[in-house]
């Protein structure tokens, strides 16, 4: 529990500080962070760099938005729709890329993701095509007797924070479970794992499904932050941005996703108000991280914390 304390403080802090606009942005950061955490399962633990992760995340967003428009924006319903949709796409992608690794995995997930994008971009009746989906009703929570509106910034932030924590603990338990260790094994010594009788394809499928569930949770509430979802949410450039976030924060540390999302999105939204060259800055920071801090920012913070006397009982499983 001590380990979670700083995280809990971090998550509760903005509620005290921020106003509507900043809090809403923080909610968006948390949503993205959750998606990046799920990506970290693939990259950090599985050694599988996926350029199709946005397709999983974005499909959940579309599913949630469509469900909300047709059946009302009840939180459990919306979450269910998003998670199911994301898991289906994740499963398909896993089947597509069963036998591939490295560059091939990258390309196959890219191709898979772009096929999803083509559908989102062209199917006007379902997805609104390039214009996206608008008129999404505000999020609520139906408790049978009464209905809690969740559209305000603090409420959205709270929902996002809970989902982020849920995603984090789901990911953590996946990693700690036997399948998580097997996953790392398939990354390190694929031939040996096969020789030992493990089915690499099956392990990958399960990992993708787990990542799909977590990304699906995040994607489901994404449309309610900006009251809009469009094809950009499934485009490979968002996948690339997620990879940048994962690397910045620290691949293989799970928590790193949070830090990476904060850094990237803050630069993208805040720095772009001050300079046209924000992409150069992000690129430079990213390159700097890859060259100088290849394990990301998280381990640097971790070692600082250790120096300050913070005990870390669990060893890092990561890259």
């Amino acid at each position, binding site marked *: 529990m001590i380990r979670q304390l700083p995280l809990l403080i971090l998550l509760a802090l903005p509620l005290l500080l921020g106003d509507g606009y900043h809090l809403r942005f923080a909610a968006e950061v948390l949503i993205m962070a959750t998606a990046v955490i799920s990506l970290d399962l693939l990259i950090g633990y599985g050694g599988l760099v996926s350029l199709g992760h946005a397709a999983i995340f974005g499909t959940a967003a579309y599913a949630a938005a469509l469900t909300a428009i047709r059946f009302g924006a009840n939180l459990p319903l919306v979450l269910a729709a998003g998670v199911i949709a994301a898991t289906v796409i994740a499963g398909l992608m896993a089947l597509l890329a069963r036998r591939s690794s490295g560059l091939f995995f990258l390309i196959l997930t890219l191709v898979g993701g772009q096929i999803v994008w083509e559908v989102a971009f062209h199917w006007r009746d379902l997805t609104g095509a390039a214009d996206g989906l608008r008129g999404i009703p505000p999020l609520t929570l139906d408790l049978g007797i009464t209905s809690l509106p969740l559209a305000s910034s603090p409420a959205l932030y709270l929902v996002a924070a809970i989902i982020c924590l849920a995603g984090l603990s789901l990911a953590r338990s996946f990693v700690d479970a036997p399948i998580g260790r097997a996953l790392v094994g398939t990354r390190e010594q694929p031939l040996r794992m096969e020789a030992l009788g493990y089915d690499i394809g099956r392990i990958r499928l399960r990992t993708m499904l787990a990542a799909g569930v977590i990304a699906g949770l995040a994607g489901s509430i994404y449309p309610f932050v900006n009251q809009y979802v469009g094809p950009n949410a499934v485009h490979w450039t968002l996948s690339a941005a997620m990879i940048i976030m994962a690397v910045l924060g620290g691949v293989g540390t799970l928590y790193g996703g949070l830090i990476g999302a904060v850094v990237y999105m803050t630069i993208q939204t805040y720095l772009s108000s001050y300079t*046209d060259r924000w992409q150069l800055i992000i690129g430079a920071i990213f390159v700097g991280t890859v060259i100088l801090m290849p394990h990301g920012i998280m381990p640097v913070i971790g070692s600082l914390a250790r120096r300050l006397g913070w005990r870390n009982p669990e060893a890092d499983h990561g890259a």
Partner: protein
Amino acid sequence: MKLDTIGVTPFTISRRGILAGGSALALASAIGAPRIARAAEPLRIGLVTSLSGTFTSLGESMRAGLQLLLAEAGNEMGGRAVELIVEDDQGKPDEGVRKVRKLLSQDKVDIICGVISAAVALAIRDVVTEAQVPTFISNASANALAREAASPLVFRPTKTSWMLGSTGARWVHDRIAKSGGMTLGADYAAGREYIGDFVSTFQELGGSVDEQLWTPLGTTDFAPLLTNVAAAGPEFVYAFFPGADGVRFLQQMRDFQLTDRVKLIGPGALFDQEDVIPAAGDAALGGVNTFQQSPDAPNARAFVEAYGRARGGRLPGEASTAGYVTGQVIKAAVDAVAGDVADKERFKRAILDQPVETAMGRMAFDPRNNQAILDIFVNEVKKDAEGRPFNTVVHIYEGVRDPGPQA
């Protein structure tokens, strides 16, 4: 606001400007800009434009156009100093929404304007409607904004896709062919709108198009398509491809020597004076387009000259004219209410009551959907006195009004 825009003097003082001024950004002629003493509260205008991503060149032009207008107006509207805050939507709707929220809650802008991309415009529509902030969509031409997505305080001082598609059909029917021909389009929202509207108006006039061909957005190689055109030998081709696709299309049409053999008509964006013609060059000659803007338009002379001086001899296209015109419309309305934009109903009536003389001609607004009623120019690209390809007005369709909500 960034102070590194090339050539155009940024007169506005903003908090961002004070921060940025600390760094060595003495590039532009910001030196010598008078510091306006603030007597009354400044009027805050938020410009949402694309300064990175696909629409960067258009976004920069729009910003330049608006800044030119502000400079000419002495940075003052209705007796109040103007504070312009420019935000980059990066061509992405999500980012557009974020920036609009920021402009509303952090910068507390009184008016929002700009927006290049239709997707961004549609995404922010709900946010600005809920916040009840007067919004001027300067460039996005999605039909929906004049129909089902119209909003009481969202004004559009530019055309709808329908206006261009249907006038194109009228022109073709009157001057080129009563029936036949081909359409070629990029398969995405705007392409479908322009060509769809062209075809339906053409059909209303009694004609019918022989063949409709589509290619995906971002097509690099039009050769298969153009070989089809060469083989079919149509009377005319109505085409639309945006940005770089359009440039490539025009060039490849010339490569295949179809420019002389086939009459090419399209919405003005295919022959944009600033965005397409400099790159396409002579490949654009002979093309006909219908557009709400023309560098040859009678009302635009002064603006064209001023813009050329501000931006190194360039001729303005749609985006820069849109920025300038938006400024003109806002100024006219703010002047009419003597700077009091807090009374939104009165502000709205000021816009609807009196047509404004703009660089696009006389602009009135349709009270049903706040959509501008415009003169649509038929431009033909001919060589001007200096031998440059130039959109020359050959006809004007006056007072074109979008069918609106019941369409």
